[in-house]
């Protein structure tokens, strides 16, 4: 199954190299949801996450011929996204603008106001905790927790060793445990 997906990904890149617009659209449909989830959690800013996700696909079009097959297409896309997020945050730091306020997802149909407020509160608490982590820790943790990437693939995506991935995730989880432990009462009350 994975092999077939990998071969389909390569086929899409080849179509993009040949200038096939439909190939680019298919790659978008296949990877945009995951990349948006990643950029959204990395930047904690929905509008910025959308812009960076767009940027990733534009870069893929212009760099399709540079893909050398050493990493999987998915890893390559996430690597571009991780770099784009870093650049974005660097630019924002220079401009002294650090948007941590995420745009709330539309409320699910039928969800009551109280439930919605509680889930918004939980979401905000998790986002704030993630934002407190170092960029390196957050990248590794988000890829492992929300994208189910094995350590070896995270290492390939971020260009670091498996040992470094392990350390970053370990430290991130420890930091979150300490942070969530501090607010245990409010968390219990919210749930």
């Amino acid at each position: 199954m994975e092999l077939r997906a990998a071969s389909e990904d390569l086929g899409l890149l080849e179509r993009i190299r040949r200038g096939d617009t439909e190939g680019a659209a298919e790659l978008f449909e296949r990877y945009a949801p995951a990349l948006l989830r990643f950029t959204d959690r990395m930047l904690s800013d929905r509008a910025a996450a959308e812009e960076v996700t767009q940027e990733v696909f534009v870069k893929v079009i212009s760099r399709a011929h540079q893909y050398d097959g050493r990493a999987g297409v998915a890893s390559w896309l996430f690597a571009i996204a991780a770099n784009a997020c870093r650049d974005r945050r660097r630019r924002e730091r220079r401009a002294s603008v650090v948007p941590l306020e995420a745009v709330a997802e539309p409320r699910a149909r039928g969800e009551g106001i109280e439930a919605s407020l509680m889930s918004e509160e939980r979401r905000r608490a998790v986002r704030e905790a993630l934002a407190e982590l170092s960029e390196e820790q957050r990248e590794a943790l988000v890829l492992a927790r929300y994208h189910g990437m094995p350590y070896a693939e995270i290492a390939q995506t971020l260009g670091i060793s498996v040992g470094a991935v392990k350390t970053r995730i370990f430290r991130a989880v420890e930091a979150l445990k300490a942070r969530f432990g501090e607010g245990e009462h409010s968390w219990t009350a919210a749930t």
Partner: protein
Amino acid sequence: MDCRDVTDLAVERLTGEAGADARAALAEHLAGCERCREEMAALEGVWTRLGTDPDATIRPEFRRQTLALLESEMLRQRVKRFRARPRFASPLLRAAALLLAAATGYFAAKETAIPGKAAPVVAGGARVGSKSVAPAAAAASALPDLQAEPRLSNVSYQPADKNGRVGIGFDITSRHTVVGRPDDPEVAKLLAYIVSTNAETSGEKSRAIELVSEHFSGAATANAPVSPEILAALSNTLRKDANPGVRKKAADALAGFPMTPEIRTVFLDALRSDKNPGVRLVAVDALAAAAKQAPDANTIQSLREKAADPQENGFVRAKAANALKEIAF
């Protein structure tokens, strides 16, 4: 297993990295250690809590905008590929063009030396050899009648020689080749004609725009002011051409000229209504560069509108916002 190893292994279990042996060893240790069970529960709590953060989903508007952006980007890439030429070809082509010019000049001079014989038109086109005597007249004699607005096909270009003369070949009913500097009125007229509407393919039109751009942009502009026909043709192309790659090329060319009220109006129109974000980005850059030198109320207003427009493409919005920061007003 030691209690000190538990956190490490517990995290690996949560991430799915722990193998069967490690999981079994961990379970065995947890069964007999109350403190480690609490640690494991705390880590599982972190993992579960992270899962309460809902995933961002793709908005239909975001999908629509991005797919449109990707489509235009793909078109732009195609135009780029058209431009690509092997590096070694350029000197060879230049040498060939010079050789051709020298040979045609020699034969033209030889033929005109015969008393009573009419001056020939080389390859249906310009008398290159006469260029040093009457540059504009040479091109003028080469240019066929374009009053009836014939469609030009198989347009080809010879790069500029050391005197800045380019060659433009095309078919109407027969093959014509016009050689001269792009600022010679007749050559400029021909280029404007090709840029306007009358080349068969977008690639031919794109190359004509590049030629105009290379010759008239930047430092060369002071010595070779761009002709009104070319300005009008580029403006018309930016406003009306169906191909976004060609429109962007026209915008790039116009951006290389000194800003005039006419060019500003074209860019403001493009920023307001061009469907292609790549074109709008060029418009933002050009307008912002000019406004930095001489702030203009219409430009500032348009950039403000773009920076605040939630429907606008993210790149364009960000670029407009950054441009405003750099304009003193």
